[in-house]
């Protein structure tokens, strides 16, 4: 039973971590390699709430807002001229990630630090005791997924974003301010990345390079998922589940490679991944 819980909660963590990257990739068609550094930023937002002695729950909105604010600046200054040059955008965001990490190192130091967790302890569930925080994280992931799916499907911004995804020239011709759509999307993507960073701090250490290992898995999941939240959820569940199963029954070392390997295989067999086309 604990295997089932491990699978779904791992999928929840992966989904949360990859969501911001998916938003940017889905609409803007660029890979934001500063995603790992934004996760780190969010984790330091959690650290700041701990240092200030305010409620650990405030880490979540603080992370989202600071990520979004950074996204605003970055989109204006760095990303905007590069939409037509996705390869240069990769280089630019990669470099940006290094800059963010170094600035964090300068401000907070190189060492591993500790942020308080809003929840701790275990709870009895399905005849087993399980970490409360992992279960809560699963709930938050599902809620965020539903919220943003609703945003895309049900709001004007979502409609515009979808129009931009389908045919940008036509969308612009119809009077949609594509520049604004892009700016908002990038900010939301960055905000979600930072939020995910704050969400994982109770499971992870807080140090200037903590985002890097997460970036690789998030990147693979987004490559497989394409542009939809549903297929990202599916990819997180299948690849994350495979990781847990391989780790449990074969070896955690192979488990660590499972997501990357499976993603490569999936893309070889079906270039569209779990997406529809």
């Amino acid at each position: 039973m604990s295997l089932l819980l491990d699978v779904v909660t791992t999928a929840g963590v992966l989904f949360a971590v990859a969501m911001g990257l998916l938003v940017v990739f889905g609409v803007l068609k660029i890979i934001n390699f500063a995603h790992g550094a934004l996760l780190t930023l969010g984790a330091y937002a959690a650290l700041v709430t701990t240092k200030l002695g305010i409620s650990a729950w405030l880490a979540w909105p603080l992370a989202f807002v600071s990520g979004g604010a950074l996204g605003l600046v970055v989109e204006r200054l760095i990303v905007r001229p590069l939409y037509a040059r996705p390869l240069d955008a990769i280089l630019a965001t990669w470099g940006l990630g290094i800059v963010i990490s170094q600035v964090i190192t300068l401000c907070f130091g190189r060492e591993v630090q500790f942020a308080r967790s809003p929840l701790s302890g275990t709870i009895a569930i399905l005849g087993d005791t399980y970490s409360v925080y992992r279960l809560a994280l699963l709930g938050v992931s599902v809620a965020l997924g539903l919220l943003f799916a609703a945003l895309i499907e049900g709001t004007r911004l979502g409609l515009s974003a979808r129009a931009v995804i389908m045919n940008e020239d036509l969308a612009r011709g119809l009077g949609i301010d594509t520049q604004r759509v892009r700016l908002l999307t990038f900010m939301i993507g960055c905000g979600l990345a930072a939020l995910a960073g704050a969400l994982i701090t109770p499971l992870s250490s807080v140090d200037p390079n903590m985002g890097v290992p997460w970036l690789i898995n998030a990147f693979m999941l987004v490559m497989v998922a394409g542009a939809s939240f549903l297929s990202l959820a599916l990819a997180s569940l299948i690849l994350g589940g495979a990781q847990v199963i391989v780790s449990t029954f074969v070896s955690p070392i192979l488990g660590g490679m499972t997501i990357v390997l499976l993603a490569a295989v999936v893309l070889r067999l079906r270039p569209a991944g779990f997406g529809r086309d």
Partner: protein
Amino acid sequence: MHRDLLIAPMVVLFGLGSVGAAVGENPIKIGVPVGLSGANSVVAPSVVQSAELAVEEINKAGGVLGRNLALEVADDGSGAAGAQKAFDSLVFQKKVDVLISMETSAARNAGLPIVQRGKTPFIYTSFYEGRSCNPYMYVNAWVPEQQVPPIVDQFMAANNAKSFFLIGSDYAFGRGMLQFTRAYIEKKGGKVVGEEYLPMDGTDWTPIISKLRASGADALITSTAGGAPNVTLTKQLRAAGVTMPYGNLAVDEGTAKSMGGDAAGIFISASYVTSIDAPANVKFLAAMKAKFGGELKTPNDLSVPEYEAVYAYKAAVEKAGSTKVDGVIKSLADVTVDGPRGAIKMNKERHAPLTMYLGQVEADGSVKVIKAFKDVDPGDQCPNLK
């Protein structure tokens, strides 16, 4: 380039320190290749501070055979490639008389051939996985034979533990420590019910923790890479409600302190903890505080051996009557240093019997010494070296 920039001011500093050297003679140069960047960058500054204090004290007291000591610090990048450059430049360009440093195992292994070629005495001051042997090298820190038994014995005696679960990071130190731990547990009649590793950059310990919980083990012993993996594992163990006796072979006092509540109850085993209440340690801590003030990095199990090794070198040179390599190498096995960790003599196959402290982390993050094990033998590390 930035590495040189980093080192330049230090060299200048140490150079200035030796102005006014005794009787116009060249100072005795001590090379310190250490990981100022990379994985060891967290601990390296405390190691350099230890060396600086030792050199200052010795120079104030008249130096060694009338000559002052001078430090040459070089960044080894915490790895093999950086260590080759650092050793090369210290041994062949700076022509240091001795190398005294704490380094990663990878850096040490890369440096040893250069030590051999340059025929330079080398005192290695980092605890490590054991059995590294070289005619020019001495070690004054612990090996698994000294660190592991206190924890295992404690769990078997006080907690009546029979089955153990081992978790580590997948690299030389992690696997080396747990391999020894497994052998020791089995020798003592215990059982290892699981042994699991995660890559060094792994972040998700969930499946391993589920296995641990399913295994029904009485006690847990971990040996991860320092820093992030150690913290991640501990946090996830606590979040999963694991409360069995938990011995951590890789956590130092400083990390334990900053982990606070999550670290509470963890057992650690070390040759140095700041709370040793011997006069030599009290004096050492006061001197460190006086010299570095607010810049002081907490002295630890990796930095204190550096301090003592400088004194060991001084004693060996004085016993041999010169800095000539053969005499120093021979004398290093005979001299005793009374330092913060007690009286230490590197007379056991180039290693030293050490007093080990079994400690438990308290709720406020401080380490309470439960038991001291006097002069624990390092075992047969280098039977082929005298």
